[in-house]
C-alpha cells in the first residue's frame, strides 16, 4: 500500500539529483577556466635521500612550461639532426617545479625542431632497472653516477654523440668514464664543500671568514671561548640519516689528504679503515659529539633534521654560527626566511683549504642514438643550451658556456666556484655501488651515537672491498 509513495519519492530524489548534476555540468567548465592556475607543487618534502641537487633558490619560474619562451633563440642556432616531428623518451627523478625547470630549458629545442617529449618521472630506481632489463629503456635517462657503470654496456658513448666536449672541464670526462670510455653528460651540478653563515652575526662578534683550515679551527675555538656554538649539525633524514656527516668527513679528507686520496677510496685502492680516515672521523666526532661545539651535542646532531640544522643558524637568536651544507641550503633559507637577503643575512664560503671540490651532479645518459637524442645532447652541451640552463637557474650546469647566464647571485657564486675548481670529487657513498653509501651513513650515525670507531671502519672497508672489486 505504501509502495507507490516509496517509488514516487525515489523517483523524485532521482530527478532532483539528475537536475542538480545537469546544472552543475553546465556551469562547471567556465568556472574552471576562470580559476587561476593551480598552485605549483612546492619542493618535495624532506627527501628521504640526500638531496644532492635540490631545487635552487633561483627566481621562481612562474611561467607555465607550455607558454612560448619569451627570449627564444634563433632557430638557426639549434641543430636538429633531422629529428623534426619525432619524439624522445626521458626518465628522471625530478617532479613539480624541478620538472618544469627542465621542460623550460628544453623548450627552445622542442619548438625549433618540433620534438615531442615522452617523460617519466620517478624517484624509484627499480623503474629504470626494470625497463632496462626488459629491453625497453628510455632514450635518455637522468640518473646517478653509479648507473653509468651499471649500464655501461648499453649506453651510447659521448664520443659517438654530437657533444661540444670543449665546454666541459677535464674532470667531468674522467668522472663520467668507465674503463676509459665517456658515457654520461653531467647536467645539473651542485657543490657540497661550502659552509653557510650569517655575515651579520660574524660582524657582530668580529669574526672573519677563515682562509685556511687552521683559521677555521682557530675560529671554532674562538667561538666556543665567546660562548657561541660554532656548528649546527643535523643527521635526521629518514633512511638516509647520517649523510650530512659523511659529507662533512669527506670535506675534511679533501683538506687533510686531497682529491687523489678520496678518489682512491672510491676506486678501492685506499682502504676505508686507513688511519687518515679514522683521523677525519675523530676530528669530526670531536665537534659533532660535543655540546660546546655543536647544537645539542651528539643527541642534537642525531635527532635534528638536516633542514632544521640549516635554519638553526639563521633563527633569531641564532643557535649556531655555521652549518656545512650543499648549495641547496640557500633555497631552504630563502623559503623559510623570505625576509633575509642573500649576501647580507646569509652567505657561504668554500671549506677553507679544501683541495678539489666535493660535488655531485645528475648524469644524462643515452640508451639510443636517434636523431632526437642527438639533438638533445647537442643542445644541452651547446652555448645556447648552457645559457638557457643558467637563466632558468636549475642549479649549476657543468657546461662552462653557461658562466655568464646566471641571474641569481648565490648560484652565480657557486657556479664560479665549480668552474674554477681544479678537480671535482664525487660523494664516496654515491660513487661506490651496492650499499656502501647506506652503510657509510649508518656507520657515522653509530659513531656519533657513541660506538667504537675501529670496528665500524673495518666493516666499511670490507663492504668497500666487496663492491670495488679490490
Amino acid at each position, binding site marked *: 500500500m505504501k509502495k507507490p509513495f516509496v517509488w514516487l519519492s525515489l523517483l523524485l530524489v532521482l530527478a532532483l539529483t539528475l537536475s542538480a548534476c545537469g546544472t552543475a555540468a553546465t556551469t562547471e567548465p567556465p568556472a574552471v577556466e576562470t580559476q587561476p592556475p593551480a598552485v605549483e607543487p612546492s619542493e618535495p618534502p624532506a627527501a628521504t635521500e640526500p638531496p644532492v641537487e635540490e631545487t635552487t633558490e633561483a627566481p621562481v619560474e612562474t611561467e607555465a612550461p607550455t607558454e612560448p619562451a619569451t627570449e627564444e633563440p634563433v632557430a638557426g642556432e639549434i641543430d636538429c639532426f633531422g629529428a623534426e616531428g619525432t619524439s624522445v623518451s626521458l626518465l628522471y627523478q625530478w617532479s613539480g617545479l624541478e620538472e618544469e625547470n627542465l621542460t623550460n630549458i628544453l623548450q627552445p629545442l622542442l619548438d625549433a625542431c618540433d620534438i615531442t617529449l615522452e617523460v617519466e618521472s620517478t624517484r624509484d*630506481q627499480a623503474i629504470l632497472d626494470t625497463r632496462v632489463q626488459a629491453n625497453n629503456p628510455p632514450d635518455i635517462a637522468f640518473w646517478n653516477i653509479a648507473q653509468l657503470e651499471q649500464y655501461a654496456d648499453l649506453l651510447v658513448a659521448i664520443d659517438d654523440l654530437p657533444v661540444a666536449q670543449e665546454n666541459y672541464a677535464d674532470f667531468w670526462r674522467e668522472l663520467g668514464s668507465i674503463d676509459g670510455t665517456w658515457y654520461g653528460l653531467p647536467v645539473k651540478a651542485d657543490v657540497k664543500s661550502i659552509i653557510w653563515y650569517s655575515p651579520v652575526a660574524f660582524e657582530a662578534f668580529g669574526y672573519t671568514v677563515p682562509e685556511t683550515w687552521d683559521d677555521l679551527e682557530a675560529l671554532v675555538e674562538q667561538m666556543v671561548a665567546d660562548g657561541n656554538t660554532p656548528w649546527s649539525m643535523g643527521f635526521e633524514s629518514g*633512511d638516509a640519516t647520517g649523510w650530512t656527516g659523511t659529507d662533512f668527513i669527506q670535506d675534511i679528507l679533501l683538506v687533510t689528504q686531497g682529491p687523489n686520496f678520496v678518489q682512491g677510496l672510491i676506486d678501492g685502492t685506499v682502504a676505508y679503515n686507513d688511519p687518515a680516515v679514522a683521523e677525519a672521523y675523530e676530528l669530526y666526532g670531536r665537534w659533532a659529539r660535543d655540546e660546546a661545539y655543536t647544537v645539542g651535542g651528539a643527541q642534537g646532531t642525531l*635527532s635534528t633534521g638536516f633542514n632544521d640544522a640549516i635554519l638553526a643558524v639563521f633563527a633569531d637568536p641564532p*643557535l649556531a654560527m655555521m652549518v656545512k651544507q650543499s648549495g641547496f641550503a640557500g633555497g631552504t633559507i630563502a623559503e623559510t626566511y623570505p625576509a633575509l637577503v642573500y649576501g647580507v643575512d646569509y652567505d657561504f664560503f668554500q671549506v677553507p683549504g679544501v683541495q678539489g671540490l666535493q660535488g655531485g651532479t645528475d648524469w644524462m645518459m643515452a640508451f639510443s642514438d636517434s636523431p632526437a637524442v642527438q639533438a638533445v645532447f647537442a643542445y644541452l652541451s651547446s652555448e645556447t643550451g648552457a645559457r638557457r640552463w643558467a637563466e632558468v637557474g636549475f642549479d649549476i650546469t657543468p657546461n662552462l658556456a653557461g658562466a655568464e647566464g646566471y641571474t641569481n647571485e648565490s648560484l652565480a657564486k657557486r657556479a664560479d666556484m665549480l668552474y674554477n675548481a681544479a678537480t671535482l670529487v664525487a660523494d664516496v657513498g654515491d660513487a661506490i655501488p651496492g650499499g656502501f653509501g647506506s652503510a657509510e651513513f649508518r656507520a657515522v*650515525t653509530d659513531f656519533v651515537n657513541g660506538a667504537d670507531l675501529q670496528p665500524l671502519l673495518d666493516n666499511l672497508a670490507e663492504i668497500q672491498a666487496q663492491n670495488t672489486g679490490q
Partner: protein
Amino acid sequence: MAAPVPQIMKQGRVIPWFYLAPALIVMSFFIVYPFFNTIYLSFMDRNGQLPASTTCRANQPCWGMFENYRHALLDEINLTSPGAAWRTFWTSSFGNMIKWIALMVSGTVIMGLTFAVLAERVRYEALAKAIIFLPMAISFVGAGVIWRFVYNYNTGGAQIGLLNAIRTALGMQPIAWLQTIPINTVMLIIVGIWMWSGFCMTILAAALRNVPEEIIEAARVDGANEFQVFFQIMVPIILPTITVVITTMVINTLKLFDIVYVMTGGNFGTDVIAVRMYREMYINYNTGVGTAVSVVLILLITPFIFLNIRRFLAQEATR
C-alpha cells in the same frame, strides 16, 4: 555398508581440478613462483646473474653458495671477540626481534585481555572498546609520524614533543627517546603495543562472550573471587583463542616494518629484519642478500604459521 551414492553426485578424478584451477593458477603465479624464485635468487649475486660463491674474496670468510646467508646472519655482528659479538647481537635486527617478540606479544595480549575483561564491566562498553580499537584504523605510517612527535627531542627552544614537554615541565632533562640505546627500541615497542592491543582485545572479547555464564555463576556461588574466576575459569576456557592470538602476534611482529622504518629508519641500533630486507633490496640493490634475509624471515615465521594452521584444523575437527 554406506548408502549408494546417486550417479549425479559422483565425480571423476578430473572434475575437481577444474574447480580448483583458477585458485591454483593465481596462487602459483603470485605465491609459489615468487617463493621459489626468491629462494633461487638468494643463492645468486646482487644481480641474480652469477652464483653467490663468486662474490667470495680471497683470504676472507666464505660460506660458498651460502655466502648471502653469511651476510644475512653475521654482517651486523662484530665477531672479533665474544663480548663484542654479544653486545652487537643485542642491537642487531635479530637481537631486536627477540626484544620485540618478548615485549610486544606479551604486551598486546596482556593489555588486550585486560581491556576485554574490564570493558565488559563499564557502562560505555562500546565506546571504550572503540577508543582502544581506534589505533588499528590509523595507517601504520601515520601512527609512526604521530609518535615521532610524541617522542620529539628539540635542541633549541621549547620541547614540542609531548613526553619531553612533560619532563621539562617537571624540571627534568629532556631525553632523545629515539636515539638513546637501549630505550629507543622499547619506545618503538610501546607504539606497537598501542596499535595492536585493540586487535587482541576484539578477538579475546569475542572469545570471552562464549564462556558459559552458568559456569561463572556456579563458581561465584561456590565462593570464588573475581581473580579466581578470571584465572581459573575464563583463561582456561579461552586458552585456544589466546594461543591463536599469540601466534598471530608473533607473525605480525616478525614482519614488522612500518613503525621502525618511519620512526628511526632502522638507525641507532633499532633495526629489524623487514627493514633490513627492504634496505638490501631497494636501497643497496643487492638482490642476493635481500632475498637471503627474506628467506631467513620465512624460516623464522614458518613454525608459527604451522602452529596456527594446526590449531585451525583442530578447531575445524571439533565442529
